[in-house]
Every structure is written in structure tokens, then in C-alpha cells.
């Protein structure tokens, strides 16, 4: 009995951690390159829509997956151009993109399927060994991302651009190019995160289905100290707190309000930031537009 409960809990944890981890990895690449990305929520939502749209028109879930990446990259591209080329306030630009994504996906739902609540069912990515393929993808990519950031020259360059762009520029690193790479990667990962919701967990798009997960992913980026493995730990913790809440309810333990479990990721992140859990240090140039002086 206890083993059944534990394995159910583990599976539920992995399942809720997956979209968070994918989005968080995207956030890490973007912020490590020096661009704050609160647009993750909108990128994820558009990705979820893109996955369903391309799966719908092609009848093939893998095309849907590529479509999610494409739409995610386009959304992230807007953020990239505004904040890198035009030195926009990155928080404002991110907010605008979140709004745009809500409007765009809702508009397209209406336009294509003539309904407001959600899309019809489409082909979904299959499960492997009882778990969504996205679970393996997310945790595999976390390790790949860690390797890319900390064990390759490219990762070193990306991080240097986020820490001290002027110094990086001086030694011949193309700051703008690296930042575009970081932000566009957040589109790839954000798109995948969205797909993991729409053609992973379900097989359809539902209005506003990212439901704040992009912001929890942002919390995981910070709680995990802008490190892919840290973010992996954070999303597992957040996923467990969500699953524990449901488990408690199933077992009839109701004197712990579910709202407290829902709050956990945010409260933990604030405590981490305040230094009570461990120090969290953002890349030094995160959020600062770089203007090349010639």
C-alpha cells in the first residue's frame, strides 16, 4: 500500500515538474545571457497552442512538437528584438508578450475552431514506460543544458555576456549574437514546455492553460540559482508540493488547506532570495540592456 502511494506520488511529481523544468531551462539560457524573461508564461501558452495547431493540420504529433518550437521561438523573438535591439525595459516587454499571447491564442481558437474554451482533440505525443516522453526529454535536456553551460566554450561565452558584457565585447565576443541565442533558446524550451501541456498531458488546447506555470518556472530559475541542475531540484520540489496537496486530499487529510501547497514555490523562492535557504545570485548584467559604444 505504502509503495503504491509512494510510486503514485513520484509519478505525479515527475509529471508536474516536467513543464516547469522545460520552461525553467529556457529561462536560464535567457537570463544567463543577460535578458530577464518574464515572458515565459506567454511563450509557453503560445507553444501549447502551436503544438495543437500543427498537430491538428498535419495529423501528426511530431509535427505539432516542431510547431510548438517554431511558435515559441517567434514569441521569444519579439522579446529578443525589443530588449536586445531596441533596449526596451525587459520586464515591460515581457508583460506585453504575456498579454499578446493570451490575446493571440484566444483569437486563433476563435478563428480556427470557432470556439472560445478550447480546441478539439488532436494527436498527442505517446507515453513511454508509463510516463510521457516529455518527462525523459525534460530531465535529459537539463543535463545537456548543464553540460552546455558549464563545460563548453559556448556556455562560457554565454555566461560572460550575462555577467560583464563590456568585458566580453572587448575580448571579441558578439554580445548581441549571444543574447539572441539565449532568448531564442528560451523560445525553444518554452515552446516544448507548452507542448508538454497541450499534446503531452492532454491532447488539446484549453484557454489559458499555462495558468501561471511560467511564473513558477521563473521561481524555479531563481530558486535553482540560474543553474540547470538547481532548477531540476527546484521543479522536483515544486512538483512534489503540488502532488502532496492532491495526495492529502485523496487520503482525506483536509486540515491542511490546499492553498498552502500552492503557495509553497513562491514562498520558498522568496526565502531563498532573502538568504534563508541559501544565497541566490543573479547574473550581474541580467536585465541591463547593452549599448555598444563605438
Amino acid at each position, binding site marked *: 500500500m505504502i509503495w503504491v502511494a509512494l510510486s503514485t506520488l513520484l509519478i505525479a511529481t515527475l509529471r508536474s515538474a516536467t513543464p516547469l523544468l522545460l520552461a525553467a531551462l529556457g529561462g536560464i539560457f535567457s537570463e544567463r545571457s543577460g535578458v530577464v524573461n518574464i515572458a515565459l508564461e506567454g511563450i509557453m501558452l503560445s507553444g501549447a497552442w502551436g503544438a495543437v495547431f500543427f498537430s491538428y493540420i498535419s495529423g501528426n504529433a511530431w509535427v505539432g512538437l516542431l510547431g510548438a518550437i517554431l511558435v515559441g521561438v517567434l514569441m521569444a523573438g519579439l522579446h529578443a528584438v525589443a530588449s536586445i*535591439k531596441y533596449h526596451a525595459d525587459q520586464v515591460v516587454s515581457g508583460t506585453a508578450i504575456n498579454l499578446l499571447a493570451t490575446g493571440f491564442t484566444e483569437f486563433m481558437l476563435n478563428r480556427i475552431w470557432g470556439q472560445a474554451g478550447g480546441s478539439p482533440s488532436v494527436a498527442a505525443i505517446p507515453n513511454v514506460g508509463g510516463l510521457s516522453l516529455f518527462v525523459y526529454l525534460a530531465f535529459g535536456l537539463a543535463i545537456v543544458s548543464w553540460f552546455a553551460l558549464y563545460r563548453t566554450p559556448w556556455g562560457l561565452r554565454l555566461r560572460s555576456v550575462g555577467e560583464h558584457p563590456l568585458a566580453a565585447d572587448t575580448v571579441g565576443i558578439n554580445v548581441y549574437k549571444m543574447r539572441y541565442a539565449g532568448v531564442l533558446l528560451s523560445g525553444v524550451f518554452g515552446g516544448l514546455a507548452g507542448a508538454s501541456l497541450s499534446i503531452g498531458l492532454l491532447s488539446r488546447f484549453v484557454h489559458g492553460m499555462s495558468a501561471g506555470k511560467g511564473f513558477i518556472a521563473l521561481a524555479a530559475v531563481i530558486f535553482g540559482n540560474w543553474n540547470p541542475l538547481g532548477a531540476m531540484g527546484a521543479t522536483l520540489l515544486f512538483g512534489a508540493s503540488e502532488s502532496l496537496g492532491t495526495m492529502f486530499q485523496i487520503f482525506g487529510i483536509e486540515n491542511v488547506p490546499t492553498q498552502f501547497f500552492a503557495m509553497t514555490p513562491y514562498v520558498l523562492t522568496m526565502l531563498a532570495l532573502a538568504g534563508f535557504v541559501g544565497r541566490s545570485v543573479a547574473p550581474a548584467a541580467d536585465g541591463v540592456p547593452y549599448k555598444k559604444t563605438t
Partner: protein
Amino acid sequence: MPNDSRWKQVLKDGLEALTVPVLATIVGLAVGMLAIIIAGKDPVAASRAFYRAVAGEPRMFGETLVSTIPLIFTGLAVAFAYRCGLFNIGVEGQYLMAQIAVVVVGVFWTPPPGLAWLHPILALAAGALAGALWAGISGVLKAWRGIHEVINSIMLNYVGLFMADWLLKYYLRPDNSRAASFDLQKTAWLQQGLIEGSRLHTGLWVALGAVVVVWIILFKTSLGYEIRSVGFSPGAAEYGGISVAKSLILAMAISGALAGLAGAVQTMGINHRFNETAAFVGYGFDGIAVALVGRLHPVGVVLAALLFGALDRSGPMMQAMADVPKAVVWIVQGAVIFFVAAEGLWSFLKKRRVKKEVTTA
């Protein structure tokens, strides 16, 4: 006359400040028109529906003002913090906590006979205080530990959302079947009917009062001077003997109080209760747009709030009258914010002006 040229300068500065927001609004509306055309709907019918919805009749205009009131507060809130270099993205959470405080005062406290007039005042004060305290957490953490207020206030938004939900479900509603709190006592309501047939309520006067107070604080008091100095350059302000920490905390708290008033006025004037909510109402995010389009100036905020209030109001009406999807409004709002944010996009205008000045010199 020197006075004359001073006014000319004010006018010129004003016009210059308006260039980007006006351009952004025009492009934003054009994007919306494009969306309407793509949707295969009639843009002329949509425009007519927009006008009728927003100002077709006095009562329609009254309803537009109803949508404008909370945006004046949240726009002022974001603008005030921004003047101190702080980005208050936590207005949504402050709004929710204020609604809870208003319910506590408006439901559980009964004013003694003859003191009924005190009820709305105390309820407004409770809302402002709750907003100030919730925002104050971000202000204190910023001043004390240097933690970025954007991250903190996003986290506090969600903590506020779940906290409000928990308080509502366990303590503030009459029974489990109801998705809203107890009703406010009538003495705590803001009276409706400023324009007949609309729900326009006396919260409008509170909002306009807040505009004046914010203008005075920002431009006529030493506190405002200090806050603006810190926003301009914290280093220089500190060197000039201004306590940066104090300014940050106060600016955030005042910003939160304004956000709280938004929630209080909406609860007391329109809803008369706190409705269960699974997501944010969006006034806080719109407030960011209102503040930026209004160029962080109280008067600009009122104008921008009218624009966004009209957009909010027109959504359902355009859907009903011209079959235009409501989502078009979100697209317009997002586009306007985006084009204001990417101010550099418009730099070609400035460049041309500079060139002209150089050649005429």
C-alpha cells in the same frame, strides 16, 4: 515675457512626451483593425460598435468611467513606484489583499448610530493599508537585502492569490456552497448613480482625489523630490544625503496603498463582496500599460486609463454587436504596451529631428 516662453516650453515638452504613446496607440489600434479584418469581420461595424459601447449614450459613458476608475488607481500605483526606479508588478496581489481587508471592515464592523459616514472611510483606509503592507514587503526586502522587487512582487502576487482564496473559503463566506464572501453592509458601499442608468459610483471622486494627491506628493513635497532623485540616480541621491532605503520603502508602500484603493473602491462601489477568483483580474497588468502610456505623469495616467477603460469596456460590446472576438482587445493592449516599451523603435523620429536641428543651426 519670460513667463510666456516658460509655458511654451511646458507645451513643447508635453507634446514631445506624448509622441511615443500616441504613435504606439495608433499602431496598436491598427494591429487590432488588422486582426478584425483577418477574422473576416467588418472594421467599420466594429468601430461603430466601439463608439456606441464607449460613449454612445450617457449611461454607456458612465460604464466606461466605471472601467476607468480602477485603472486610474493601478496606473498611479505603477507610475509612483516607477518614479523611484521601482517596478511594482505586484499590484494584482496588493489589490486582492485590499479586497480582503475591505470585506473584514465592511462586513464584520457595524458603525455605531450616527457614525455611518465613517464606514466607507475606514473601509478605504483598511484597503489602502493592506495594499501598502503587502507592497511594503517587497520594498523592505529591496532596501534591506537588495532583492529585485520584480521577482518579489511576482511571488507575492501568487501568495496573495492563494492567501485570499484560503481566507475566503475558511473564514469570509457564509457557507461552502457560495463562491463569494458575505455582502458588505450597505453603510460601507460607495453610492452608484452618478450618471443615471450606469453603475458609476462615488469612487470616481476618490480616484480624482488620488490623482491630485499623487501630483502634490511627487512634485510639491520634499518626499516626492527625494523619491524622484532616487529614481533618477540612487548613487547621487545617497551622496546628496537622501536615505535611499527610506525612499524605496515609502515609495513602494504608497504605490501599494494606491493599488489597494483600486481593490477597495471596486469592492465597495461595484461588487459589494469579494468574489472567488482562480486568476488575477488584470487591472494590475493594465496599470503597467496605463502608467507607461501616461508617461508616469498623474494627468497622463488619467488619459491612458480612459483609453484602456474604453478598450476593456468595448470588448464584450464589440463581440455582441459586431461579432468581433473579445481577444482583439487583449491584442491591442499587448501591442500598445509592446510599442511603448520598445521606445527605441521610434528613434528614427528623434534622429531626424536632431539632423534638422544641426542643419538649421
